[in-house]
């Protein structure tokens, strides 16, 4: 289990992550939008709308239909012309985390490392977004059902997320595309946390559509170190999502596996980055969860230039 940057363990020995320590370690982190968001409820992100906030930007001649209260009367007195005072609008960015709860996330079987890290990232990123006054929601794709927590800004939403992920055991091979569609309908920023071993092309197509629609998509690829470097002893490995796949992992097969898995990861990273997704890899135990959160939330785009 990876340690936090201050040395504490984010997960207790029972396997249940210590969310309090995680939330404490990410306090103060901001997560600005990568591009101007749509206007709406005032928030922390730069909006595409021009409004009447205190942050002045420019004047515009009065046009019929403008609100008379927005005319700068002092300028009208000096120039005898009516101007409207414009300013950059600030808006919220509803954020929804889509969490893959398929059986492949319950790996390794003993430590449930992938699921634990995914749950910590989901809660941590939600907390960071919540700190920016953004509504945060959660969609968990689970076999037979889809657990949805609509984006909210109330204080208890993080606690509800913690309870939702703690009471859940990954199983089955549910489709992630439907969870993504639900999240796209609800939010402008979607965080997709998965090992991407499910439906590949369909999910990428859905993500591409969301990006075109102006959504900000973050993809976190969860990988277990046992998947990168499987045990050297001969095993008859089986896919938990496809029990029919039972293959002998011998010495020769191991080399071919390493090559194929590496190529697949490179292909995933390339395709998702090309689609305009902020793609990151999270290897269990390789990097502290709070560090991963800082990496994901680092300012990019207009936020980086602001």
């Amino acid at each position, binding site marked *: 289990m990876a340690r936090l940057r201050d040395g504490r363990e984010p997960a207790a020995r029972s396997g249940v992550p210590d969310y309090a320590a995680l939330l404490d370690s990410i306090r103060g982190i901001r997560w600005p939008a990568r591009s101007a968001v749509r206007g709406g409820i005032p928030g922390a992100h730069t909006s595409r709308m021009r409004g009447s906030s205190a942050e002045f930007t420019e004047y515009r001649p009065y046009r019929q239909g403008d609100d008379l209260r927005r005319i700068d009367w002092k300028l009208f007195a000096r120039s005898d012309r009516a101007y409207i005072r414009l300013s950059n609008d600030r808006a919220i960015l509803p954020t929804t985390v889509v969490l893959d709860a398929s059986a492949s996330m319950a790996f390794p079987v003993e430590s449930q490392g992938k699921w634990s890290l995914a749950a910590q990232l989901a809660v941590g990123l939600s907390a960071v977004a919540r700190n920016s006054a953004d509504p945060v929601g959660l969609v968990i794709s689970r076999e037979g059902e889809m657990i949805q927590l609509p984006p909210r800004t109330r204080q208890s939403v993080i606690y509800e997320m913690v309870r939702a992920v703690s009471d859940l055991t990954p199983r089955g091979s549910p489709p992630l595309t439907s969870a993504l569609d639900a999240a796209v309908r609800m939010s402008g920023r979607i965080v997709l946390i998965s090992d991407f071993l499910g439906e590949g092309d369909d999910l990428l197509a859905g993500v591409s559509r969301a990006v075109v629609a102006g959504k900000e998509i973050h993809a976190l690829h969860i990988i277990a170190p046992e998947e990168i470097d499987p045990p050297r*002893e001969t*095993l*008859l490995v089986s896919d938990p999502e496809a029990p029919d796949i039972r293959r002998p*992992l*011998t010495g020769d097969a191991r080399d071919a596996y390493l090559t194929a898995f590496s190529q*697949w990861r490179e292909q995933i990273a390339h395709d998702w980055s090309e689609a305009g997704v902020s793609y990151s890899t999270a290897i269990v135990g390789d990097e502290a969860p709070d560090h991963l959160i800082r990496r994901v939330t680092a300012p990019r785009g207009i936020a980086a230039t602001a």
Partner: protein
Amino acid sequence: MTFLAPAFFYASLAVAAAVIALHFIVTRQPRAGILPTARFVPDLPATATARATRPSDIPLMLLRALIILAAGAGLAKPIIKPSRGAQARVILADVSRSVMDSAAVRDSVRALYRNHDAIVEFDSSSRLVSADSIASLRFSRARGNLSAALISALRAGSSLRDRADSLELVIVSPFAAEEFDAATDSVRKLWNGKARIVRAGAREPSGDSSAREKPAISWPTSSSRPPGAIPLEARDTIGGVLAGDALLVASFERRWTYPEDSIRGAEVIARWVDGEPAAIERESGNTCTRSIAVPITSVGDLVIRNDYKRFVRAVSGDCVATTATIHAGTDKVAGLAGPARLAPREAFRPRSDVHSGLAPWLLGIAIVAAIAELFVRRRRSIAATESRLDSRPARRAA
């Protein structure tokens, strides 16, 4: 415990070892594990196996080994208390006239004898005697015959084959030249093993040839009859006479004959061609006297013929007591030793079959174990199937 047919048991040992080795080197399915990225493993046959470092199934392995060993031991016919030893001897004791020191022969036989051995005494004939008779071996004046003794040894070997795995032939004799005949070598080869040569009872060779006894020969004359012979009531004519290897073919008028009283204690040294004695020899102190009943006529060329000369040399040779002590040549005696190995018991004709009482029981155990092996294997197969079925929902749940 020993086996009547140990080859079966050795074969079963080899097969059992192979079965145990198979349990060690048998391949089995590797340990199952979960790997979400199993789809990236090459799609090889899932029956690929891993080498086991310990026996795969010890009870089943032991059961299979028991089947094989019990069957092999049953076919090998084990005998808990063997009725035969490893080795037995057939001792040929020479009691003929060639023996000058009978005590030496007795001592040699007594030293060589062990339980289950057979003793055959021989002179011109041979007899199987008991161990109690060693002290009372009766030495005779008859000429020894090794061929007859060897025939009796073969018969004794057949009776000993059930008591020993290997048989040794021991010949205790002075090995006089006269004891060998033309059949000796052939009969000796019938004993398919080595013979121990024990020279005993021979007279020490003397270097002074003049010390040998010379016989006193009484040739018949027209006025006197040969000593010990009586005139025939009806004279007849016969066509030849034989002395040793010398055959004299001529027409003789047979005038005398030797009554049984005369022959008793004497040695016939020449016979007419119809078998009647023609000359006898009788001991007389350190020498011997010979009575020859072959009339020699002065008419004709008989006395100048070569066969007549050979006949005369034959009947005028050394006394029998002297020829009986002439040692056979070293090559002849060495030829009796034969090959270096002992004769196996299989070389002798069996007199009866030996049955093993344990064989049916062991074969029964093998059958019962074979049936049990079927049940054990079936139970293991069912258990494996059930565990496989149980593991599927568990994997789904995981």
